[in-house]
């Protein structure tokens, strides 16, 4: 609690106690004494409201909440309803206190959820460790990170090895092992060893600062519901005040002039005052940004950065998800997935192929070397001859090894069996004799299948995959995953046109998921663009609307579910608050609702809406 809140709490408690005592005192038949005594709790709890109301009049703010609250309570006192007048003020202040506490608490909660802001950096000065403000550390300085400390600034490890807890950044709970030469991201926590890191960015530009900036500024992009509510608030208060005027003046005049009955001024003024109690739109106004704030913060904690409340709304309406294959569904690193028709042992075949390709930097040769797994002995290789577009021929262990595509085999007149597997096929011949082929294919991500299933469960009806890969490869993968439609063989610019075609089909909102490399135009063209595993890539973070900090495809459906939950809560609050207030206004006009019900419509609804809004924060199990 802040000092301000504590002060208000003490005032509320003091007023509550004195109110209770006044109820017990035998002062029923002494009106003046009763009035004066009731002023004590009234002024204790409401003096600042009266002061603000007075300032409101000076500034000609007729529809100021404090002003209206002051009229309502003073009016009730004037009508002799002392206890109600005081109670309205008392409950109003309890509501204010609760709201301020809840908002402050969730502000704090979010910054705890996103507990990645480093407070200091260690640098070495004349052999001593000195703590400095990370803002003051220049690019290229050496910082030291001890076990248990947060990495303050992005950089590269100069010395030391350790494991890092990156869960606050990516939501991934397994620690990551790091050693010399590897990059570390600010916001991760050093778990075991001392690290010397050469910074590669300024603090402001480092990952942790960027993420916090993103989350904190997300509220600036306002959603449709927020805009609606702030417009609604602007007309609601004048409308209710006008209604109060009608009830206070026109109703009695109608009775007096038309019905020739007793005008009952007191009764109708009391009814009008109940209107003023409900005139404050605060309940709805506070709960909407609170819901979005909670949703965005909770998502951030799960490694999903949503750049604005408006994107929450779009997320909730996503019915079409378009994937870019590489980097989202598949890993984008090619692995040996099979060896076919080999009369010798598979390991031997891979060994020969890897050795022959040793000096090539082609991705295929990298995969072969990874599959071989041992340090290749350079002395075993000689006479390497590259045949562009076909492959190469080299002498390994005095045997002539030919490694390449089917064109190489044909050009050397070697009989071989054509392969129909998905992926890149590497044919191997030893001393001009066909020895089988190696299949290298892009590895599917572990959760890809579940991710597609979860998306369908989350209400996505239209799944599309775009890829620059061969149609044949794309078809196979999509069949495996259960994706409805596939477009293969696309150039980057074709992807935009395809996406535009898909958007024109108008199946809900269209999300595009890419790895953030080369797909910025597509990301920005979609209704909502997801960049995956994009941490560290500034361009992708810039272009995307939702940034998934790790590369787990399950996060896509999670983001959609968070959006849905958040929007559902927002609508619940809007409907509930406006509904209750409308009902209370009608009942108040008819004289059925008294001031107590009006207090509930104001303070009770606000408390319920705020509590409901706080549910947005809990998204872990979605």
């Amino acid at each position: 609690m802040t000092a301000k809140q504590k002060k208000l709490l003490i005032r509320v408690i003091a007023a509550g106690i004195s109110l209770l005592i006044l109820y017990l005192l035998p002062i029923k038949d002494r009106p003046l004494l009763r009035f004066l005594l009731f002023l004590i709790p009234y002024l204790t709890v409401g003096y600042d409201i009266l002061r603000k109301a007075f300032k409101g009049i000076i500034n000609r703010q007729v529809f100021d909440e404090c002003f209206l609250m002051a009229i309502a309570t003073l009016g009730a006192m004037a009508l002799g309803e002392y206890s109600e007048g005081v109670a309205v003020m008392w409950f109003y202040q309890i509501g204010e206190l609760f709201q301020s506490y809840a908002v402050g608490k969730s502000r704090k909660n979010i910054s705890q959820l996103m507990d990645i802001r480093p407070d200091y950096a260690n640098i070495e000065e004349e052999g001593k460790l000195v703590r400095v403000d990370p803002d003051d550390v220049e690019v290229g300085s050496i910082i030291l990170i001890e076990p248990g400390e947060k990495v303050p600034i992005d950089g590269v490890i100069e010395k030391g090895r350790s494991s890092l807890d990156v869960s606050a950044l990516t939501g991934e709970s397994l620690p990551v092992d790091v050693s010399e030469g590897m990059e570390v991201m600010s916001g991760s926590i050093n778990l075991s060893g001392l690290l010397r890191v050469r910074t590669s960015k300024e603090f402001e530009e480092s990952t942790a600062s960027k993420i916090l900036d993103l989350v904190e500024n997300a509220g600036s992009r306002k959603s449709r519901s927020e805009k609606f509510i702030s417009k609604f608030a602007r007309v609601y208060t004048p409308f209710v005040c006008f209604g109060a005027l009608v009830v206070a003046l026109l109703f009695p005049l109608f009775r007096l002039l038309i019905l020739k009955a007793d005008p009952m001024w007191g009764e109708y003024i009391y009814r009008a005052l109940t209107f003023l109690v409900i005139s404050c739109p605060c309940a709805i106004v506070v709960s909407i940004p609170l819901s979005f704030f909670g949703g965005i913060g909770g998502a951030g904690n799960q490694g999903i950065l949503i750049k604005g409340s408006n994107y929450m709304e779009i997320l909730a309406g996503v019915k079409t998800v378009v994937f870019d294959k590489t980097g989202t569904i598949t890993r984008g690193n090619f692995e040996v997935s099979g060896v076919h028709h080999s009369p010798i042992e598979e390991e031997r075949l891979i060994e020969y192929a890897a050795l022959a390709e040793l000096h090539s930097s082609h991705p295929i040769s990298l995969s072969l070397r990874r599959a071989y797994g041992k340090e290749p002995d350079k002395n075993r290789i000689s006479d390497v001859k590259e045949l562009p577009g076909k492959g190469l021929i080299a002498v390994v262990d005095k045997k002539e090894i030919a490694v390449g595509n089917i064109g190489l085999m044909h050009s050397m007149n070697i009989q071989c069996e054509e392969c129909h597997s998905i992926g890149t096929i590497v044919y191997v011949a030893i001393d001009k004799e066909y020895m089988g082929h190696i299949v290298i294919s892009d590895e599917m991500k572990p959760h890809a299948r579940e991710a597609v299933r979860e998306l369908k469960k989350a209400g996505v009806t239209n799944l599309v995959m775009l890829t620059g890969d061969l149609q044949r490869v794309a078809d196979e993968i999509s069949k495996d995953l259960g994706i409805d439609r596939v477009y293969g063989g696309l150039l980057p610019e074709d992807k935009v046109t395809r996406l535009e075609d898909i958007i024109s089909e108008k199946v809900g909102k269209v999300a595009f998921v890419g790895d953030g490399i080369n797909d910025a135009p597509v990301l920005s063209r979609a209704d909502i663009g997801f960049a995956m595993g994009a941490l560290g890539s500034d361009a992708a973070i810039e272009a995307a609307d939702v940034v998934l900090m790790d590369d787990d495809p399950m996060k896509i459906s999670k983001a959609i579910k968070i959006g849905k939950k958040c929007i559902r809560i927002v609508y619940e609050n809007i409907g509930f608050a406006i509904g209750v207030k409308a009902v209370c206004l009608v009942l108040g006009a008819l004289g059925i609702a008294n001031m107590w019900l009006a207090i509930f419509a104001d303070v009770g609804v606000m408390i319920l809406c705020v509590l409901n809004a706080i549910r947005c924060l809990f998204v872990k199990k979605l």
Partner: protein
Amino acid sequence: MKKTYKIEVDCANCANKMEVAAKNTPGVKDANVNFMALKMKVEFEEGADQEEVMKEVLKNCKKVEDDCEIFGI
């Protein structure tokens, strides 16, 4: 030219009122108040004196909500 200021305000509706008040201040092209982050983002008109404009913004905000503050003007 855009600038972000830290603000202090207690209720969400007051934050909305501040946003409108800031938007209607001469020299301000657009303004955005983020109640949850307690930040006001102001986009100034070209050639406007930021300090002078912000003084006016604060004055206008104080009119609609007495209990508010803008820091770092």
